């Protein structure tokens, strides 16, 4: 059956050709900076400055990577970043699952209004909450710590929205069967709801993880010393004014920063596409 698909001759009509060319250009446009970063990171400095546009290094060099590892505590910073990103992801998923469940399965006065308010928080710019949050974290004595970065990010309206959408595809009777058996809500969430919307949870989690991994403004406010830095802050050290002008080193740390999110995305991409195209399971 599959063989047939592979050997099938695909005939494209004019319109489809047009789309394919457009999409190829789009892919090139999106991939070019990444390829450029990877290639530059393996160049020597003179090669990088002389042959700016060439994608293949004259001489393959890992000097830039060595220099990154020498100048910053890379392992420590990666661990910080990973800790922050995975904590944020975990908390956001937990709160989103709980909130989405109650919004879908509990009937209470003002449910829709509450949902509307929650969703509208997605449209509040970060800069509006930045200062109050900073002051709160300061009062709590959490400046310059990973928890200071994590604490204001325990819940996310986007997660509630996405998970609510996929929970709505679960037939209500599945939950009612459990209610008749006197099964508690947390148990229902764990045994029934979560397994059924796993693809949505994974893809929502990936989005949270990558966003948190790449986050810059909030950590830069909170984190002051190098041993607490995250990767995006470390990256900044190599491209700012006093950081030096070695573009190969800057590209090396860029590549090191994006490896993990990229790998996660590639592994779980089918869930992500699934979530955004059809949103969850079919009853």
């Amino acid at each position, binding site marked *: 059956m599959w063989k047939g698909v592979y050997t099938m001759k695909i005939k494209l009509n004019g319109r489809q050709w047009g789309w394919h060319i457009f999409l190829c250009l789009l892919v090139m446009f999106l991939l070019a900076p990444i390829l450029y970063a990877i290639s530059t990171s393996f160049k020597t400095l003179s090669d990088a400055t002389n042959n700016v546009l060439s994608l293949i290094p004259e001489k393959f060099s890992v000097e830039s990577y060595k220099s990154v590892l020498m100048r910053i505590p890379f392992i420590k910073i990666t661990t910080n970043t990973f800790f922050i990103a995975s904590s944020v992801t975990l908390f956001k998923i937990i709160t989103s699952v709980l909130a989405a469940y109650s919004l879908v399965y509990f009937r209470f006065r003002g449910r829709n209004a509450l949902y509307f308010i929650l969703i509208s928080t997605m449209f509040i710019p970060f800069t509006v909450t930045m200062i109050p949050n900073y002051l709160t974290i300061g009062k709590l004595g959490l400046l310059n710590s990973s928890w200071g970065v994590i604490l204001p990010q325990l819940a996310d309206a986007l997660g509630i929205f996405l998970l609510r959408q996929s929970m709505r595809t679960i*037939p209500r*009777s*599945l939950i*009612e*069967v*459990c*209610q*008749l*058996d*006197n*099964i508690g809500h947390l*148990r229902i969430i764990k*045994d*029934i709801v979560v*397994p*059924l919307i796993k693809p949505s949870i994974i893809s929502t989690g990936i989005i949270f993880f990558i966003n948190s991994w790449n986050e810059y403004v909030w950590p830069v406010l909170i984190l002051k010393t190098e041993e607490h830095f995250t990767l995006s802050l470390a990256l900044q050290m190599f491209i700012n004014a006093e950081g030096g002008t070695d573009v190969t080193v800057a590209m090396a740390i860029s590549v090191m920063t994006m490896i993990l999110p990229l790998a996660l995305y590639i592994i779980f991409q089918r869930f992500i596409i699934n979530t955004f195209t059809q949103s969850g*399971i079919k*009853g």
Partner: protein
Amino acid sequence: MNSIVFEHVDKTYDKKVFVIKDLNLAIKKGERIILLGPSGCGKSTTLRMIAGLETISAGNLFMGDKLVNNIPSGEREVAMVFQNYALFPHMSVEDNISYGLKIQKMPKDEIANRLKEALRILELEGLEKRKPRELSGGQRQRVALARAVVKRSDYFLLDEPLSNLDAQLRAHARKQLVKIHETFHQTLVYVTHDQVEAMTVGNRIALMNKGDIQMIDTPKKVYNRPVNVFTAKFIGSPPMNIINIEYADGQIIIGEHRITPPEMWKRLMYKNGKDRFIMGIRPEHVKLIINKEDDAVPCSIRYIEDYGNDIGMYFSMAGEEMIAVCDSNAPINNQEVYFHPDYKNIHLFDADTENSIGYPQEID
């Protein structure tokens, strides 16, 4: 002994439209009662109120002499089969069946025993490890039944459990259901819009319309002694013929024709004191004759349907379309035939209230 009692129960979502209005219903312990009615009549809502999945807006609901208005569903000890079966797609057949028992921390060997028994009764042996999507419709339906059976609850609620099956499977599943009930003797409440299911499964039928109970009695009574026009028309296929008649000077007037009913009916109609009635005759009781008689009304055949064993004859009488079911040897060449009521098998209803005027003692 009553096991489920509704007292003046209302159900409304917006305090304007009542899904259920002043429902009074007493379900006996261990009986099979059918909630029958057209869609939107409130029968599923009634069932869900018993299960505790819908709240009660007003009135009282008792289960086993206990007021349960505010008791959550989990504490009502009911087993329910849903129309869409509500199987967990990610669990195997045996996990689906035993999930509830496991959560309630029932001993393992007891779970295994009940599971085995349910699998045997419902002919599911060998399918234990399958996922619901690998099962046929009939098998899924049986898994849903098995999951309800293992609970050994006193109350067995079924919400149109057979409506997604084809006709043959349905007949088999009906028998299976009755067999299960005869093994465990739960109080069985069964919602359906299918009158054949109602007639074959039920000890009693509660016929509902617009949130109210029209009639509650044995299938036989509901069929033979309908209390009003709605009941008469809803039960029976093809439905009962309904025709408006007048009563004057001891004679029934159908259109322009007068026929003389026997004394027994005259007495009843006289007692009722009105002069307009609705007459109902089941298609299988319509007698069409070829030769004109005194007490017969002429009518003309319009259309004939062949059911194989029987034929259905559509004819018009006094401007009304009626149907007669007769065996296929009946002479059907004649366009002109005569209708002669079989007075033992007619039903008379008050034209205004549409309620039955009753039946003469002689035939009751």
